[in-house]
């Protein structure tokens, strides 16, 4: 069992999108509604909130937050604005600051940094678009890069590449 951090709950509550952790009453409706929880015992939104409240920082930040689909079913049903679907974003950003991000997400961030798009347009597709009379894809990879540099993405990604992601594939 890892060490307990009594301040963790407040750290999450003060992270953007994390304040719901203060009002959770552990009723279990979120897990009862979650489509992933029905397949995977490891993903349990209520338990996630419980672990944040109890202060199990390492357990929460590594591996656990990345199963969430962000389908927001839990958000619609939570009676106390615990809003675990939002809190997930808060703990993910905390994990990202420590460089703990799954491969797939790092890949997407890299694309965004280099091309301004999440998914790059392949050569053959650019040709096909031209043949079909579709306008050129107009983007600004420079602006995307600037924004990401300014908000610290580049450091985050470097750190993520340096550390192994602990997400099981």
């Amino acid at each position, binding site marked *: 069992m890892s060490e307990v951090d009594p301040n963790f709950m407040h750290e999450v509550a003060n992270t953007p999108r994390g304040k719901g952790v203060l009002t959770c009453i552990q009723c279990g409706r979120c*897990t*009862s*509604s*979650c489509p992933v929880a*029905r397949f995977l015992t490891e993903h349990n939104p209520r338990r996630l909130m419980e672990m944040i409240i109890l202060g199990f920082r390492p357990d929460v930040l590594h591996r656990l937050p990345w199963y969430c689909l962000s389908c927001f079913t839990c958000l619609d049903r939570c009676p106390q604005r615990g809003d675990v679907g939002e809190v997930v974003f808060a703990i993910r950003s905390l994990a990202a600051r420590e460089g703990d991000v799954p491969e797939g997400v790092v890949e997407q961030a890299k694309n965004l940094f280099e091309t301004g798009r999440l998914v790059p347009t392949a050569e053959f597709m650019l040709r096909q678009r031209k043949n079909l009379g579709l306008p050129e894809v107009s983007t600004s990879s420079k602006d995307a890069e600037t924004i990401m540099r300014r908000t610290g993405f580049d450091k985050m990604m470097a750190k993520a590449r340096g550390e192994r992601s602990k997400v099981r594939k």
Partner: protein
Amino acid sequence: MARAHTKNSVLVIGGGIAGIQASLELADKGLKVYLIEKSPSIGGRMAQLEKVFPVTDCSKDCVGTCWLCVLMPRMIECYRHPNVKLLTYAEVKKAEGKIGNFTVNVVQYPRYVKDKCVNCGVCVEKCPVKVPNEFEMGLKDRKAIYTPFPQAIPNIVTIDAENCLHFKKEGCSICEEVCEAKAINYSEKPEQLTLNVGAIIVATGFDLFDPSQIPAFGYGKFKNVLTAMELERLLSPFGPTEGRLLRPSDGKEPESVAFILCVGSRDRRFYSYCSSICCKYSLKMAVSIKQRNPKKEVYLFYTDLRAFGKGFQEFANEAKKIYGVKYIRSNPGELLEDSATRDIKIWYEDTMSRSVQNLTANLVVLCNACIPREGTNELAKVLGIELDNFGFVKQLDEITHPVDTTVPGIFAAGYALGPRTGDIPDSITQASAAVERVFEVLHSRKEE
């Protein structure tokens, strides 16, 4: 009866247990009471219940006392008491004045039935119109001429003019033709009454949250998902199934029943307070079902089991150990219906074992929030009293003046004040308190 001085007369608004208790206490002390009730009969929510906990005089093995034993004698006493003037099917329309001297305008809606009605029931039998019966929570129909329930007080019929064919100009006068007592009088008009009273007690009770606002629970779509009050009607011997627990889809007895607590209560999307009586009454009904047939599976889905007060925690423990009621600490996510059997599948996470599971029950009961009565806003405007932010009657001070409203001389009791541990003994206690306050202010030397 001697002409009542304003200082010796009181208006009680609402004919439920709190209103009835207050009326009887005031009347016994020699004051003249006007007990006004919007529906055709007094009795209120308590008359809709099967039993009330805990058991008092009856068989010690039973979970509770039938409402008849507790409420009926009081209802009859209200009717007979020389100091109580019962005004049913009537409503307060205007109020002026101040403490010690209120002038209240009341409208008495026409029943179109004279007092000589003996409730023989022939007109009800012959009436061709059927509409859902509000008292039965819509589970059974009534006629356009009706009594809401057999033990209604006053025990005469009423014609619901909105649904009556005679008043819709379709030429029906069957009830007049068959009435041997010649009690039908279609030409009755609404009557305006002016009452002069020294004090007013508001005891208008509660309504129930509509669970179809939570689509995931399927209320209104799935036949075998009911509210707690609807279950009370099914369990009640005077109800639509004469006390047999039969489920709506096929009329068969359910072998498994699941209660879901906190439906609309403790929910910031709807009513963020705890309704305070649901944990208690669901235990009562769960055990009542088990006592009828111990083989039935009964589940209770709860977040916190709030069984506070004398005897309730012991009862909660007994329900589990002795009667075999199964507690599951979970607020279910969704209910699904099996289209063939109409059974209900409940998806939930058992927060104790931390596993997501599902359970199929033949019948699901939603313990929905108790909310302010419809019409409370209007009544508050008429009386000039303030409401709290949920729409219940606001107390002058929650600690020191719990039955005073914000207008001197106007008091309140029962669930009209909101979920202040609002079960029946509490309503009776508050009614007594309101009566004492009435006395204090009417007969004190200083004007408040």
